[in-house]
């Protein structure tokens, strides 16, 4: 599998999770204090590293075909869920998630609680957000890198670049993450996750794909075209019978 493709997919998927975590950390930083937000982030990253260090190596005990099948099914389901939401949002059937709204809600919630408890709640909020989104990034890295040690390296590099880039963007802008076109990112990631999921499920079941890894590109084009058609159909106004 092409390392750059792997890193690119991992980069995009991880960037989505990092943007979500950044939004909460920014909200806690603005509403309470930056030391609390940054300390919670640091503790969450330490907890995350410990979890990955303990449970990560266990994945290598599973036979590779079984792993590809399980990971493939999960990625396909995950990709379909993302793609479905992105299609519905493009078609105007679901509101586009606005990070500004999430950010303002978070600030309002934090300011509403008692001062004495606010710091503690702010810490837990940022800690939980970074830990959960970080775990999602770890799952993305491990699943995309399940093929080999080299693949794991490419996947981890892509995720690390995404997290670093989003963190730098957050520090530079200090503004809600809604400036990143989240739905576009989710649409592209949904297509990629579904394509990888289909490819790996097929390999796990014993399918010898035509063109080997090149078939990933065909699968991505196929799902992209299908999704574009679905956006057009879902967007079309329904005719009402008199």
């Amino acid at each position, binding site marked *: 599998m092409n390392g750059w493709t792997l890193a690119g997919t991992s980069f995009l998927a991880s960037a989505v999770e990092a943007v979500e975590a950044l939004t909460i950390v920014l909200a806690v930083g603005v509403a309470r204090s930056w030391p609390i937000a940054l300390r919670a982030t640091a503790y969450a990253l330490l907890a995350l590293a410990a979890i990955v260090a303990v449970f990560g190596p266990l994945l290598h005990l599973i036979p590779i075909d079984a792993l590809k099948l399980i990971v493939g099914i999960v990625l396909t389901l995950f990709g*379909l869920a993302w793609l479905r939401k992105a299609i519905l949002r493009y*078609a105007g059937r679901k509101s586009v998630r606005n990070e500004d709204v999430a950010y303002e809600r978070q600030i309002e919630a934090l300011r509403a609680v008692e001062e004495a408890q606010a710091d503690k709640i702010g810490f837990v909020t940022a800690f939980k957000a970074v830990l959960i989104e970080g775990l999602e990034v770890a799952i993305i890295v491990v699943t995309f890198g399940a093929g080999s040690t080299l693949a794991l390296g490419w996947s981890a590099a892509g995720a690390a670049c995404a997290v670093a880039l989003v963190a730098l963007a957050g520090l530079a802008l200090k503004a809600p993450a809604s400036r990143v076109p989240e739905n576009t990112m989710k649409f592209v990631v949904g297509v990629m996750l579904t394509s990888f999921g289909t490819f790996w499920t097929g390999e796990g079941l014993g399918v010898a794909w035509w063109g080997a890894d090149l078939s990933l590109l065909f699968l991505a084009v196929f799902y992209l075209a299908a999704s574009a058609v679905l956006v057009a159909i879902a967007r079309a106004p329904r005719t009402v019978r008199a």
Partner: protein
Amino acid sequence: MNIAAIWEFIAGDSRRAPVAVAIAIVVAIVLVRTAPASSIAGVAFACIVALGLAAAVFERT
């Protein structure tokens, strides 16, 4: 975190998409064993998944 929460995290709130994936797996298993070329099973899997996506898009949740 319970099983239902993990399932919702992975598959979202659609019921049709997971059913389509399950059907696609069964069809692919049969085709891998019976079709002249295993890539036919792969193509069938992708088509059923795409149909599942279409069904999920127009699903009321």
